[in-house]
């Protein structure tokens, strides 16, 4: 089989898989190269499944709004895979006056952008979710937020892309991108060279090293975050939860299990030993966080914990951008831990960028060269 395609995508996460799907569906030839043995092995299978608009940077909000309105509700049908999308609201919880201030600030900014989000008091919070403890005194409430199953969504995009003709190669680590006659063209791995008219780099933090091989740097760092999953419980509540204190976030899945993420405070310095290793202290910290808000879960058993890197951008929003100075190169990285909810939108936008079509949303805010100080 030829190692040449109109578009080469580096990274088989949900962004790469979604882009591959929309391209293949449009009849464009695609090869997706994934370093891991598994599709979606990075952040795509290591996130809390939030499909949120609230709490987003205003620059990112249009992508989230578009996804919630035009893509997520139809995605299960489109992919033929139940992505377990539930649009039943997000509660960001607060327990102190300080929390109330944080939440109020977030709410005000979101409202200014036209999002339906409001502050509610403790009583109202417990009307929405009776399992929350009396310590919760306030929350920001966004009724159109929700959650989905990241594993099903990622693999759903993959399977549909594959059946639409996209070629996926796993276990194929890209070492560098090479230019031919002034354009990014060759994608070099340990044993192979792939060629494409367009090259989309969508491989999380590793995108930084790859972009550097053609002289581009994206200012980002990585943080090792952790999550856990519980045994199945009877259905308790459908909302996505988060907190002003950022001590935990998560939701109950259709399966009945809860998926929660959280932090120990050492995310900047934690190392995973190259195998997504969890720390001994993080999951207990997440558990303590959860129990303060949902005391009823004290007996619920944790069955599994995991860790994964976030590609945290210097300014907190992703780079989704063609690289003018390296024709043929398109970057989609630095999603900063909130890429899942906007992944279908980003995938579709990338498919348009790859065929040099005008995109259905304005991507100026996500330019790769926005980090250069003004006046340069």
């Amino acid at each position, binding site marked *: 089989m030829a190692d040449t395609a109109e578009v080469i995508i580096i990274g088989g996460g949900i962004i790469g898989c979604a882009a591959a799907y929309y391209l293949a569906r449009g009849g464009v030839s695609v090869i997706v190269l994934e370093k891991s043995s598994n599709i979606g092995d990075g952040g795509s299978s290591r996130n809390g499944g939030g499909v949120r608009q609230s709490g987003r940077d205003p620059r990112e909000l249009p992508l989230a709004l578009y996804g919630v309105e035009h893509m997520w509700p139809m995605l299960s049908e489109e992919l033929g895979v139940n992505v377990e999308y539930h649009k039943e609201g997000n509660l960001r919880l607060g327990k102190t006056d300080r929390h109330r201030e944080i939440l109020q600030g977030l709410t005000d900014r979101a409202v200014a952008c036209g999002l339906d989000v409001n502050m509610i008091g403790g009583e109202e919070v417990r009307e929405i979710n009776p399992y929350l403890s009396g310590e919760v005194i306030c929350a920001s409430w966004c009724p159109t937020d929700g959650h989905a199953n990241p594993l099903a969504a990622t693999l759903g995009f993959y399977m549909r892309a594959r059946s639409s003709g996209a070629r996926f190669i796993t276990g194929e680590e890209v070492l560098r991108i090479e230019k031919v006659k002034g354009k990014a063209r060759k994608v070099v791995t340990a044993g192979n060279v792939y060629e494409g008219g367009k090259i989309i780099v969508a491989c999380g933090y590793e995108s930084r090293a790859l972009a550097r091989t053609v002289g581009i740097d994206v200012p980002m760092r990585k943080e090792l975050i952790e999550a856990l999953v519980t045994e199945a419980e009877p259905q308790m509540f459908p909302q996505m939860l988060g907190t002003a204190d950022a001590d935990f976030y998560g939701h109950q899945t259709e399966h009945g299990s809860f998926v929660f993420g959280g932090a120990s405070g050492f995310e900047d310095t934690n190392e995973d*030993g190259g*195998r997504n*290793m*969890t*720390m*001994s202290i993080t999951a*207990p910290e997440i558990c303590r966080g959860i129990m303060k808000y949902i005391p009823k879960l004290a007996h619920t058993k944790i069955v599994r914990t995991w860790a994964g890197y976030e590609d945290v951008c210097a300014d907190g929003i992703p780079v989704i951008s063609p690289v003018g100075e390296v024709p043929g190169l398109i970057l989609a990285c630095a999603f900063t831990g909130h890429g899942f909810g906007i992944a279908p939108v980003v995938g579709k936008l990338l498919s348009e960028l790859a065929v040099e079509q005008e995109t259905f949303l304005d991507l100026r805010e996500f330019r790769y060269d926005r980090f250069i100080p003004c006046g340069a």
Partner: protein
Amino acid sequence: MKRYDLIIVGAGPSGLSAAVEAAKRGMRVIVFDENDKPGGQLFKQIHKFFGSKEHRAKIRGFRIGEDLLKEAAEFGVKVVLNATVIGIYPQKEVTVRIEGVVEHYKGDAIIAASGASENMVTFDGWTLPGVIGAGAAQTMMNIHGVKPGRKILMLGSGNVGLVVSFQLMQCGCEVAALVDAAPRVGGYGVHAAKVARTGVPFYLSHTIVKAEGEDHVTGVTIAEVDDKFQFIPGTEKHFEVDTICLAVGLSPMSQLLKMAGCEMEDNPRRGGQVPVCDEKGRTSVAGIFAAGDVSGIEEASSAMIEGRIAGIAAAEYLGYMDSGESEQAIKEQEEALEGLRQGMFAPQNRGKHIETTDEGIQISESLLKKGYIGDDEIERYPGVRHTVGIHPVMECTQNIPCNPCQDACPKGCISIGQNITSLPIAVEGTECVGCGMCVASCSGQAIFLVDEQIEEGYASVTMPYEFLPLPETGTKGKGLGRDGSPVCDAEVIKVQTAKAFDQTHLLTIKVPEDMAMKARFFTF
């Protein structure tokens, strides 16, 4: 953080053995086990072990467990029960759930001795209550004192399937059949023979078609399979049972080592996913060792030696022994291990069909296919001889590493020789006094004392008997052949019970003269 020289995961045969060796050298050792009783599988092993004296042969598994615990206590090993290790983290941090707390410990060395889990096979109805693992059966009957069922079908003719079938009968269950898809019995012939002679039919080249029942097992259908393991139509057989017991092998329980970052391999000869280890049990992570089933499925006797080796290796690693001392100590253990890893059932022979013994004698086909030696085959073995008066008959026909019988006889009637796997020989010119020590010492229950003519027309057969109720002298019943079918009327003429026999009673029955070499069990 609480720190020990050595943290051992698992208080089974290998873990406890490792603990003893390490503690002996002055190390501070803590052993965690998730169960509420120590000893791992040893406490479910109520049969006598094979091997030689150094392997604690002819001692019952649970007694070996008791001895090991005592030894560990003597050397100051701390054994913590109901302590589930939930993770191994960098810097050899171990998190342990103990009651309602998760404790963090650190070890300068860790030995994983976490054992194995049971393999399963699928068939229609395999999720029904009443389908259980062989380990579950052992746990229920030998630990908790509850019968796993009333009437049971056993799937699997390896040592576990054979031993557990026997144990099921010992606790009062009925074993309806022993079934295996393989064409030949996988475990020791002596284990098979002691099950077959009680009347349990063996169905080799058969497997389960369907477990029947609405809410729980009420019956099972088996059928013959061809050499590609496909059912042969028309060969179905039905049994009314309430329990189906699965004994289809074990897999190393190596997840903790994988989590700890040890290099792993999928090695079918070791039973599945195992850490890559050297001969001292050292994994790819310095200071983390593996011993026992977690590094490759073998018998408990081997696990104990592997544990000792790992314990010594850990002592060397932390400077509690110099390398000269440890080399010597390890060498001794390796020799003992070598002794066990010989014969037809040695790891290197796994899966091979061996047709003759080392002595060049043909292996009984009947034993491999039906679980018992045919009456026409028995005479070919060197343990089976005819002399006037009482004498031992050793129906031990495969090269297995075991020799307690030769030490048991005070008169030197039995010889195995230097090679622990050789077949026992009835030594010419010696005189049996009928003490029965050999009968009780044979872990395979394969030795009988026979007097081919105790009176005109009658012979006596003395056999090991480990069932309740124990018949009394004068009890009349039937003599059963090796295949478990009644062959003659028989009367108990002597019942011997002795501390040295360790719960094995010696039953002497009087049978017609021509049954001296045929009657091998008694029922009444």
